[in-house]
């Protein structure tokens, strides 16, 4: 319509007028987006939405309010199980398993079962819950990552260490034996300790060493005893003489 009206006004072909009106030409509702007047375009550009400034993204810093985790029923049940485990078993070792298959786990369990050590799995979340309430709260830093518990009623440390040496993917982190926390070195030294009877025997022998020695000396020939005593006296006199010399020198 504009072209037909302005056909006579345009002196030559291809000459665009200086000002273009967009208030007519097409209807208000078109299938294409109508060309907007430059002033309207400017208005829309000026009145754009400016969002509120944020110093840091909302997830950059952790929230100050600590969200309390809801304890599900399942977690409470597992916690009860854990309590029983800690009550019944004397030795509780924490082991980290990296990349172990079902086959490896099976062989490990079989080897440990021979020494009546059982393997227990517990979720770390429940573990931390239980430990925070109980006496064993210092064990909490051990339970990070994929951990397994080796529990047994009798502390069979040597057999456990030998089995762990055989499986490369299991790493011992720590143990709680007879309510005492032990690190890896502590566990190794515990395993090197002699058994109870041996220790008792050593203690008894240590206590009775002097008396037994005297008895043995008396049991021998009295001449032997007299020779020993003479040598002792000589040594004593030699020591006294050396002491007197040093005193006179100073």
């Amino acid at each position, binding site marked *: 319509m504009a072209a037909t009206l302005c056909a006579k006004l345009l002196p030559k072909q291809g000459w665009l007028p200086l000002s273009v009106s967009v*208030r007519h030409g097409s*209807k*208000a*509702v*078109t299938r294409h*987006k*109508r060309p*907007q*007047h430059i*002033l*309207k375009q400017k*208005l*829309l550009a*000026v*009145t*754009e*939405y*400016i*969002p*509120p*400034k944020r110093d840091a993204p909302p997830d950059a810093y952790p929230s100050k309010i600590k969200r309390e985790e809801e304890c*599900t029923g399942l*977690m409470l049940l597992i916690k009860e199980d854990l309590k029983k485990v800690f009550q019944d078993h004397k030795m509780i070792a924490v082991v980290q*398993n990296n*990349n*172990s*298959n*079902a*086959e*490896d*786990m099976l062989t490990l369990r079989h080897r440990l079962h021979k020494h009546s050590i059982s393997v227990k*799995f*517990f*979720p*770390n*979340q*429940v573990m931390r819950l239980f430990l925070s309430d109980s006496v064993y709260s210092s064990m909490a830093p051990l339970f990070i990552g*994929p951990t*397994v518990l080796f529990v047994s009623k009798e502390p069979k440390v040597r057999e456990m260490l030998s089995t762990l040496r055989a499986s490369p993917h299991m790493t011992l982190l720590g143990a709680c034996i007879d309510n005492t926390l032990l690190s890896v070195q502590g566990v190794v030294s515990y395993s090197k300790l002699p058994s109870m009877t041996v220790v008792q025997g050593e203690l008894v022998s240590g206590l009775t060493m002097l008396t037994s020695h005297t008895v043995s000396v008396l049991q021998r020939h009295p001449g032997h005893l007299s020779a020993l005593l003479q040598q002792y006296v000589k040594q004593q006199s030699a020591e006294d003489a050396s002491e007197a010399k040093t005193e006179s020198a100073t």
Partner: protein
Amino acid sequence: MVSVVKAAVGRLMGVCRTHCLQKGFSHSHLKILSAGMKTYEIPPDYSNVVLPAKPKLKFLNKVPNLKKAKKEMKKLRDIQGPAKAANTFTVGQYAIVAMGGGYLHWGHFEMMRLTINRKMDARTTFARWRVNAPYKPITRKGLGQRMGGGKGAIDHYVTPVRYGRLIVELGGKVELGEVEPVLTEVAKKLPFPAKVMSRESLEAFQKAQADMEQNNQNPWTFKRIALGNMLGIRRVLSPFDLHNHGRFTGKFHIPGRV
């Protein structure tokens, strides 16, 4: 003799063991034991959802049942601007919402009806129309006719749809994930841009727009300048722009405008 038997048994055992190991080999690498805390999601409760007797979309007529059909003016303003009617949920949970203006004709209705009726499970879902059957007559002149000679004859009927109107509503004992693919398939074929929304997502959408208006840091808004006729801008704005604060142009909605 005994040694031969023993050797044979040993070989058999060896074969069995290797076979078991091979089997175990393929299985053992699949299963890796771990103990994480699994939290179970509670499935949604559909006890108070009533399914109607006729769950499917009803057939809509091509032509309204009129004694005498009158020719109507074009009146394109029925496409312009936001929808005032049928822009909220009534019975269903999930709907197709129009994100622009346009006309729906009988072909669109049939496509929607057939696709949704075929793809939805009638035992657990129901669907309802939120638009009327075509009622607006569209005239066409014959092919090759010159201008003039009166208005053309009625060719077909359409339903005008504005931005924000619900087209089809779905409800029942289903979650959004089950219903969304069906509805997106239909929404893509409509003549205007459309989105699948649930009750919550529509609320969130409207809330987001309201929040944008609330926390806009720009002191200059289209509404303020147009209402006050600052810089004589009403010369290049229409009354429609005044109503809709520059968020619409013709049948299009401009997103991100406040």
